[in-house]
């Protein structure tokens, strides 16, 4: 078996038009039961090569040079004497899926019946929590209380919407702008603070910068800063899940900038070849530090890249929490049941600076930032939807925000007052058992710190 992709039809599909079929072609196509629509999103399911589920080597189809269609390693290709280049872009860009208008109205009012009120309220509460946590941690950094922070302002819907659609056993490989996923799964505000302060209660034992959270228990892999390295790792985890036939998938997040890395290309390609149950969620927020997407790639965003690798993809309005939720939910189902990767491009805007080491007003206009912060806020959008349905009101809002602020203050104070991990933590976990050379280095370090205590921080215990 194999793919059947007549070249002519492929060209027309990419140009977003219906095939200018001759009668012959129509007969041929219907004979082969192939129908293409102009809209790339509604791709039809093709049989997945079964190679990776058996031990039989794939047999190449017979090569009959007399046939009109020729066979190249399992893919039928038709010839054409009309020279035609595939255009660099199609007339219509990939459409963007959304359920709520910018002002929080359901575009299809009847779909309210499919929504779970409690779930929507919980999603909203978590989005507000994320927003408040970010604001307070950012301020704490500015006051010198923590050394560094990365906000998720503007991307709360992607964080919480996607997290709500996943199962607790789905393994998450994030970039660094997805703490909401961890928050949804139960990571407490105190735990976030402990990591940012690097105190002795930090699960990472003070070894990573702030926002590099990780929790084995919650199936959220420790954040590693290099861009896109998590993408092939997620494919590896999905490979393991596929081998063990688990009802779970791997999920990986990355930004628009991350799609330029070799690891993204390699991970996508591999996931498609392997048939790995993995979701690739791209937060296309318009900026990679100071590089706008117009300088990052020239393709029609990220969703279009899926087809190049044989990966089903969708573009979704990243500021619409409900759309993100449903897109991820469906994607997850396909990934797990059909053993295929899915690419989700969530369009959004990075309202905050890249990090606390960045001042984005240097490369983008303050008006642009203000516009997205005030008029396209995903949190406000969901709030408008909830309030218009009387599922939420101003009083709830005030109570929630007040309560969160109080919690955050106490959480910060607690985290600050805790001791830092002892010096022995510098040498543990490099290997499973500490080797001799590290033991010696530990002794040397303890001796030096013990001898010149005034030159070292006083709140780091020697052991």
């Amino acid at each position, binding site marked *: 078996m194999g793919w059947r992709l007549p070249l002519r039809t492929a060209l027309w599909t990419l140009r977003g038009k219906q095939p200018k079929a001759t009668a012959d072609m129509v007969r041929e196509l219907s004979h082969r039961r192939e129908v293409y629509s102009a809209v790339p999103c509604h791709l039809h399911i093709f049989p997945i090569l079964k190679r990776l589920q058996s031990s039989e080597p794939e047999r190449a189809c017979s090569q009959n040079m007399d046939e009109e269609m020729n066979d190249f390693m399992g893919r039928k290709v038709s010839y054409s004497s009309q020279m035609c280049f595939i255009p660099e872009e199609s007339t219509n860009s990939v459409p963007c899926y959304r359920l709520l208008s910018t002002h929080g109205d359901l575009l299809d009012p009847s779909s309210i019946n499919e929504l779970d009120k409690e779930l929507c309220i919980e999603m909203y509460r978590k989005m507000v929590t994320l927003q408040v946590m970010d604001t307070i941690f950012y301020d704490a950094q500015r006051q010198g209380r923590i050394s560094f922070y990365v906000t998720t302002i503007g991307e709360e819907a992607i964080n919480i919407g996607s997290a709500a659609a996943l199962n607790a056993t789905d393994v998450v490989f994030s970039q660094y702008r997805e703490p909401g996923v961890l928050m949804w799964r139960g990571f407490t505000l105190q735990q976030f603070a402990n990591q940012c302060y690097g105190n002795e209660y930090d699960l990472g034992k003070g070894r990573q910068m702030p926002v590099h959270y990780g929790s084995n228990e919650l199936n959220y*892999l420790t954040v590693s800063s*290099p861009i896109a390295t998590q993408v092939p790792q997620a494919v*590896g*985890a999905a490979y*393991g899940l596929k081998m063990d036939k688990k009802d779970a998938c*791997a999920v990986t997040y990355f930004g628009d900038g991350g799609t330029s890395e070799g690891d993204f290309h390699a991970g996508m390609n591999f996931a498609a070849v392997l048939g790995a149950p993995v979701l690739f969620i791209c937060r296309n927020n318009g900026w990679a530090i100071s590089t706008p997407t117009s300088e990052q790639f020239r393709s029609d965003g990220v969703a279009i890249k899926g087809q190049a690798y044989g990966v089903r993809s969708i573009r979704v309005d990243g500021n619409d929490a409900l759309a993100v939720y449903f897109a991820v939910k469906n994607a997850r189902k396909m990934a797990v049941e059909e053993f295929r990767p899915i690419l989700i491009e969530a369009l959004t805007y990075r309202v905050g600076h890249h990090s606390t080491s960045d001042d984005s007003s240097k490369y983008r206009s303050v008006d642009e930032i203000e516009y997205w912060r005030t008029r396209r806020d995903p949190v406000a959008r969901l709030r408008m939807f909830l309030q218009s349905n009387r599922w939420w009101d101003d009083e709830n809002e005030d109570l929630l925000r007040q309560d969160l602020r109080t919690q955050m203050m106490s959480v910060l104070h607690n985290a600050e007052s805790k001791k830092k991990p002892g010096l022995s933590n510098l040498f543990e976990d490099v*290997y499973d058992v500490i080797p001799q050379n590290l033991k010696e280095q530990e002794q040397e370090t303890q001796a030096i710190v013990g001898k010149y205590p005034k030159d070292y921080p006083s709140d780091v215990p020697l052991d």
Partner: protein
Amino acid sequence: MRAAAEKGHTSAASLPGIPRASKLITSAVAAKSEATTSSPSTKPGHEVLLFEALQEGLEEEMEKDPRVCVMGEDVGHYGGSYKVTKGLAEKFGDLRVLDTPIAENSFTGMAIGAAMTGLRPIVEGMNMGFLLLAYNQISNNCGMLHYTSGGQFTIPIVIRGPGGVGRQLGAEHSQRLESYFQSVPGLQMVACSTPYNAKGLMKAAIRSENPVILYEHVLLYNLKERIPDEDYTCCLEKAELVRPGKDVTILTYSRMRHHVLQAAKTLINNGYDPEIIDIISLKPFDLYTIGNSIKKTHRVLIVEECMRTGGIGASLRSSIIDNFWDYLDAPIMCLSSQDVPTPYAGPLEDATVVQPPQIVKAVEQLCQ
């Protein structure tokens, strides 16, 4: 100096324990070596080539533990470029023995992700040099994530493949990766040199909870040896005392072990008594075995294939100076390759690799 009194005019045959001069052997390097490891087994065992020993180790571990899997280019039905994974895909299916597209960073990253979520993958680099593409994953993630996650996630991965200078493979295919990776914290590195230690190290590496890089040598795959039938592993942190002696400690690993053994035949015939240690563990060094030897002989010669700058020899030298300075009677000598890309032309290539006559000369110089 004590060595000077013993060498020289006494004939080799009159010294106890020295083989007779008539037993001079000048065979090529990759032939069967005589003075090999002492295998603890008393059973007859079976003869294998080194690549078969690796394959046996791999197969036994895959049978024992269903979490063990292999990924790399052409490892499946092709059986691997050096046949180390031959027959495994037929036996375990092509999901457990996975053929990957050509993307080293991808499949190394995949293996790291799979390891963190419960599998025990073995990554095969078709040639170690290609793993330079995976350096980001190996350094920033493989070596680090156990540490930065606070011990929450382990990475029990094995990265293996052939490296070293082959027969006219050209510069890009003659890399010594142990030199580049030795600095990455969190990694363990071992180098196999005989079928016995190849199988033992392979099994130990798979069972280890740490990420281990197993260096094979492209010219040693056809080395033949009789190995035990029963299950055995070699310790990943222990050096191997190949030949006890008292004049000089020769530290070496991988292919150079065989060059050293070749030189040893000449040295013994000339009345020297070298102690030869195959260091096996490139990171961390087995300073215990090495130290005991230095305390006995007081002279050290390191023979390696790495470049002079920044290789294993350079680090070993510095470790020895730090720890055993007082026991040295002479400066540590290190024979390494020059700091040049390995040329294709045969004679030029031979000139960049340390040859037995050089080793003989170095020992003579050291023992003056």
